[in-house]
């Protein structure tokens, strides 16, 4: 998929984040979109990448 379209998806997610859960880490959500974009046929890998991003998001909040 082209970057421009990915930007569209990211924009939509970011918009909904600010509307519904502004306290959520924007970087984490972006990481989820990218994980799914990069692993369209591999659920396990997508989940693994999301878990890594979640760990980083929790660490940013001081939770280890």
């Amino acid at each position, binding site marked *: 998929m082209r970057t421009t379209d990915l930007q569209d998806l990211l924009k939509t997610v970011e918009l909904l984040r600010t509307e519904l859960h502004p306290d959520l*880490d924007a970087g984490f959500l972006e990481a989820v979109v990218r994980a799914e974009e990069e692993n369209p046929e591999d659920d396990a890998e997508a989940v693994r990448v999301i878990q890594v991003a979640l760990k980083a998001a*929790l660490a940013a909040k001081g939770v280890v």
Partner: protein
Amino acid sequence: MLRLKRLEVEGFGPFAEPQVLEFPDAPGVTVVYGENMRGKTSLLNAIRYAFFGTVLGRGSRVRRLHTISNRDLASEGQFGFSVSLTFDYDGHEYELVRECKPTVKSPSNDEDYTQTAMLRRGTSTLGPQERERALQQIFPKEVSRFFLFDGELLQEYEELLINESEAGHRISEAIERILGVPILKRGRTHLTQLSEEADKHAAKEASKRQETQALGTALQQAAEQKEAHQKEVARLQQQLQELNAQRTEVEQFLQSVQKYASILHERDEASARLDQAAKDEKLCRGELQKAMGEAWRSLLREPVRAARNAAQDEAQKELNAFLMSLRAKAVEDGHCGTCDQAVDGPVLARLRASLPEEPDAVAAPTGGVSAAMSRLADLNKFTEADNVGEVRLLWKRLRDLELEQVTLRDRITDLNAALADSDPETLRRSKASYAEVLEKISVVKRAIDDEGKKGEEKDQNIQRLKKKLESFGTSDLRASQLRAKILRDASEVFGAAVDRYKAGLRSRVEATASKLFLSMTTEKQDYSGLTINEGYGLTIRHRDGRAEEARSAGAEHVVALALMGALQNNAPLRGPIVMDSPFGRLDESHTDNVIQTLPEMAEQVVLLVYEAEVGKAKMRDVLRSRLVREYQLERISARRTNVREVK
């Protein structure tokens, strides 16, 4: 963006020798003209074969590869075929070659062939895994229906207007795939899955502590119960999916049986016509033989006529000489031997005056029939006849009948192949199982609703328990709860994003489809555009704001084409549109409008048409500079076609 550059086919369908089509870089429409059975669909299939290794026949059924080999070559013992496709994608040139070769001398089914594929990017040849990954990215099979299609496939889009139609659901999924929705959907699914795992973990942590043990255990139990309901829902949904697939299969079978009936009818008609043509040929041969028996008269007519005229002249001269000799004798004797009367006075003077001055010029009268008279009598016996025209007509008729029989035999072979799977008993059983499947679907749907409600109740209980647990939060518990909350909230964001993104896409697709539809319809003054539904089905909107419930086959076709163009305009994946005979259901005005709109549907359009649909003059007049190249499929024989560029 995917752009086709060159297609080469060999041994594929009617293309025996290597045939090449080159597609110009300039945006616009390339048109391939060809009569029926010349290979238009084979060209569409050649592109499909290059990308996916499959060839589709009627009803989108996969055709056996054994039937793809050129029949003329096959009759000489040469089987197999190859397709080479060169294209550009995201700044790289690719060459994709796919070959199907026999592994035995006389192959009789697909197992007797082996297929090979090669994908070159720039100067590098990709390995098998890399090749498949690249092809999946360049042109996913799941969305090929939006790029390679014929009139039959366009008809399927009507399914999008039918609620719970399996075909409609399948097309909707393909549409969402081409529009990029699955990324968000999968994100939501994975976040939900992780969030539930985090909830369970938090409950487990809580159950280990004395002060939260009761709550934690209750939460764990509630989570387990909810999970059990979810598993049951998932199982039922899987069952529903299988039942829907069964329903689709039976529906397709029943539809194909209807097709079988029509194919059978067509084959019977073709067989009857073949018998008749054979009888007509026999009759014609008899007539020709008879006509040829008389044809010598036509050849002799002119010489006989000349000889007859010559004999006539000669006999006339002889008669004149004989009369002269009788006169001379009467003058000399003073008595006419013919009427036995005396000749004297003025009669004698008049007779003498009619005689030549030289007495030797008058011969003595002779008796009997002269040679000239005999010849004339013989020549008069000749009956004149001219059947050249008749012989010519009979020859032409005979040739036509021979050709018709060849064509009919080919057609019957094709139709027999299409009928290979038909079975009346299976039809009867299928009708019964269709009713059974519908009943099961209804039962499973009710069970899904029930389980869903039970799951919701458990979920409410879980939320209540979680709130209570939050008040007991220790740092470890808080970490688990925070983790679960982030995932839950993120899942909610993705769920809402799916809806928002889809709504935005639907709105964009609706706007573009409306614009294209209004450009193509001839009812511009009455219609204001198209309205899109949840499943991307499109209805025609009248200027009075109401939907047009009933629409003609032609209008359906225009709507489907508008959807194709709208998806092309709004999808991340863009590529060529290759259309095979798409004007069959359209009148002349709609056809003109559609042709005019084609360049707006995609940057590269390849149109395969027969000239009765749209002639060259019309195509040039309507497309003008946007017509970038024209090819003609030329008949060499019933089984061979060549491709020629039209200059």
